[in-house]
């Protein structure tokens, strides 16, 4: 084998128990000291490949060589001791412990039998200085911002001697400012001789910081390129296998009647901590209102309240002029509230049921689909076939269980059901999270299409690109409050939005009130 590669994975094949061929004889190699991007659509097999590397999955075939030696990783512990570290997309930290405690967990310095607090703090401070990753060693993880938590994750891997770092979509949860900071830190790590594998959906970031890029599609390796020699369009063509137009073309909005009116909505945790504070806004037919914000600023609760899944503690909600505060999901749906949930597997589908069954969940009591006693199985099958066709769901048939589909196709099933329910308003919460470029393009197109046909759309998203390019109007939520309103989303800059999302900049109250009336 070639000695100059730090990591070499050869002929990796992995089949999941449900028969999905996640990796098909994948060859993947990384040079020492480079930042290597691993890109591909959802379900392309990137995460699986990295799980194999990290010992979280056992491959059905293939070999891994690290520093020229055969490596048989059986567990993450083994991978860590070999010098491979992973920064997961969802942080693996104990929120109630301090930064230092999280970092030394499992390798605590001791003084006799006791935990040596001072040495631990010193270790963390030294490490943080050495890599220029600033953290507060004494702060509890639950109190520090997302960006710092990520640094803690990276430091955790470095403290355990990681030379090869795997970063799984590290920027998905970061604001533009935090992303910049991360990239500076990664540059520093590279300068000190570390090697990184950077998994991302965001091709501009790939272009910005990586040396080489490996593209995967459908479980196979499609190509390896020097990043400097390709454009974003080249990469996305490799990923999807065709040209992708991410630029959204839409006609100007034609706002009609107010469909959703929210007035002074508040919600508190059981401990009395406010999650939403006096939130007011409205959405009109024929317009897309975007709500931007870093995740965890009350968006999930807001959407659950608006769709009847959660009861607010104060405030009023009206749908098409009818007061619907504290209505049930059934009542909300009867008034045409369609909901694309943020977690498709938790709320959006019953994964073990077939596609066609998932497509009738909201309309099972309608006379189109059920008689007095028995279901109309023919109508259900037809509905399934039609929607699978119309929404390009890639599946063997409408009778296939949803769990056999890729993330993007599962999302299309959800979108198909919600859009075909003849809604008056579509509430879309992170509608394209974790789906591939092709599906993103499709879902965005559908959102604009349904809006321009006279439906109100409320789009909640942490993805700046999405919320800026799809929305007509834009609100920013921070700490459970609306802190900024922009009547024209197309003239807002990313930096401006980022500053509001972080709560650094706020709009004047009077101005805001006017914009929200």
């Amino acid at each position, binding site marked *: 084998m070639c000695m100059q590669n730090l990591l070499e994975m050869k002929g990796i094949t992995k089949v999941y*128990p449900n028969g999905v061929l996640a990796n098909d004889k994948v060859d993947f190699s990384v040079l020492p000291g480079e930042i290597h991007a691993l890109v591909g659509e959802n379900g392309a097999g990137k995460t699986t490949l990295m799980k194999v590397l990290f010992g979280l999955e056992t491959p059905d075939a293939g070999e891994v060589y690290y520093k020229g030696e055969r490596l048989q990783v059986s567990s993450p512990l083994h991978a860590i001791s070999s010098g491979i570290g992973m920064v997961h997309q969802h942080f693996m930290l104990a929120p109630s412990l301090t930064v230092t405690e999280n970092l030394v967990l499992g390798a605590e310095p001791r003084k006799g039998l006791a935990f040596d607090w001072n040495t631990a703090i010193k270790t963390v401070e030294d490490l943080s200085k050495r890599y220029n990753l600033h953290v507060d060693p004494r702060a509890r993880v639950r109190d520090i911002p997302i960006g710092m938590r990520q640094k803690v994750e990276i430091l955790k891997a470095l403290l355990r001697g990681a030379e090869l770092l795997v970063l799984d979509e590290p920027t998905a949860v970061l604001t533009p400012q935090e992303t910049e900071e991360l990239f500076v830190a990664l540059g520093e790590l590279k300068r000190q001789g570390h090697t990184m594998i950077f998994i991302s959906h965001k091709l501009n970031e790939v272009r910005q910081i990586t040396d080489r890029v490996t593209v995967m599609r459908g479980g196979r390796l499609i190509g390896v390129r020097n990043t400097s020699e390709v454009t974003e369009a080249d990469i996305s063509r490799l990923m999807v296998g065709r040209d992708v137009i991410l630029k959204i073309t839409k006609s100007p909005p034609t706002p009609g009647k107010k469909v959703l009116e929210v007035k002074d909505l508040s919600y508190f945790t059981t401990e009395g901590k406010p999650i939403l504070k006096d939130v007011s806004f409205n959405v009109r037919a024929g317009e897309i209102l975007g709500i931007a914000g870093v995740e965890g600023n009350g968006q999930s609760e807001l959407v659950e309240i608006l769709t009847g*899944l959660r009861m607010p503690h104060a405030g009023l909600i009206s749908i098409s002029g009818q007061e619907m505060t504290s209505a*049930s999901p059934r009542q909300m749906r009867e008034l045409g509230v369609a909901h694309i949930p943020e977690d498709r597997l938790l709320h959006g589908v019953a994964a073990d049921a077939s596609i066609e069954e998932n497509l*009738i969940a909201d309309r099972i009591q309608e006379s189109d689909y059920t008689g007095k006693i028995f279901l109309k199985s023919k109508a259900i099958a037809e509905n399934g076939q039609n929607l699978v066709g119309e929404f390009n769901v890639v599946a063997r048939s409408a009778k296939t269980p949803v769990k056999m589909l890729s993330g993007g196709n599962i999302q299309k099933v959800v979108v198909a059901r919600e859009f075909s329910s003849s809604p008056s308003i579509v509430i879309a919460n992170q509608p394209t999270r974790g789906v591939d470029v092709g599906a993103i393009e499709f879902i965005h197109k559908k959102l604009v299409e349904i809006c321009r046909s006279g439906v109100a759309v409320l789009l909640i998203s942490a993805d700046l690109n999405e919320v800026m390019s799809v929305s007509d109007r834009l609100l920013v939520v921070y700490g459970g409050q609306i802190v900024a309103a922009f009547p024209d989303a197309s003239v807002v800059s990313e930096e401006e939005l980022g500053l509001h999302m972080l709560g650094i900049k706020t709009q004047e109250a009077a101005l805001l009130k006017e914009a929200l009336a």
Partner: protein
Amino acid sequence: MISRELIFEIGRTLIAILLALLLGFVIILLVSEEPFEAFGHFVTGPLTTTRRIGNWIEATIPPIFTGLAVSIAFQAGQFNIGAEGQLFFGGVVATIVALSFPLPMYVHVLVALLGAMVGGAVAGAIPGFMKAKWGANELVSSLMLNYVFYRLGLYLINHHFRDPAAGAMVSYRLPETSWLQWFWLPTRVHWGLWVALAAIAFCYLFVYRTRWGYALRMTGLNKDFAAYAGISVTAVIIYSQVISGAIAGLAGAADVLGLYRRFQWQMLPGYGFDGIIIAILARNHPLGVPIAALFLAYIRSGASIMSRMTDVSAEMVAIIQGIMILLVTAQAFLSKWRHRAVVKEATKHEVNA
């Protein structure tokens, strides 16, 4: 279209049965002086005479009801193990109705069956209601209620309907108008079999062909999804438990009205727990329930013949039974073998594509 997965499930169950039989044989080899004869009794015994075939069939009737009852609850995502108490109470109510309301032929038995269903439904509704309203864990509440309904039933029989002339703690003899008649003499196979077949058809149609069954399945598969789609999860939990309880109640009525013609249980009969085994074997599918019930009753019947006819002790027979059931119900069994088949299929498919 039969899916690969279904074929695998059937194949896996058959192989498990063969392995279990082999293991049973090995154990018999170790403990018996006459292993071949003993094993022969075990495997073919239930089929050797009409009476034995009858015994086998009559023993499947109550477990079909409890198997269906547990399947319905499981499909709704309710881990309800209260079928035992429900069937016991169903038997008690059937006895009370049969003894207290003299009615003409046919009507009487129907009313007694209906009473058993109501009794079982009430017993089933309580844990369902407690779960839906207050979030009480149905596993615990249904298990505990087994003992409540067991004692309540015994109290009612022993203090109000006990036959003092009988030598044991049993109820008065039931009037013939309330019997489920034997239709295949000399065996005791009774009309309850037809009721069981009707219950199978009802469960299948209800679960797979009605909107309530659809709501029930979606709630069982993902209750957050069901709530999100506008299905009332509270209603599903309650009606699934009521139906499950009503069907379990029939199991008690079948034995009381069909076999004994008086109430004579002093202990819980165990059909409710058999129902759990059957539901697991049948993968909660109503059409799989009768097959699983026949299988379980066959093992039970063969084992009892073996212990009567040979030197294999009753305890050893119980152990062999237990091991066989364990092997057959083990879900992860042969999963490696299955995974290899999946890998082969997946990689082959890719080459063709």
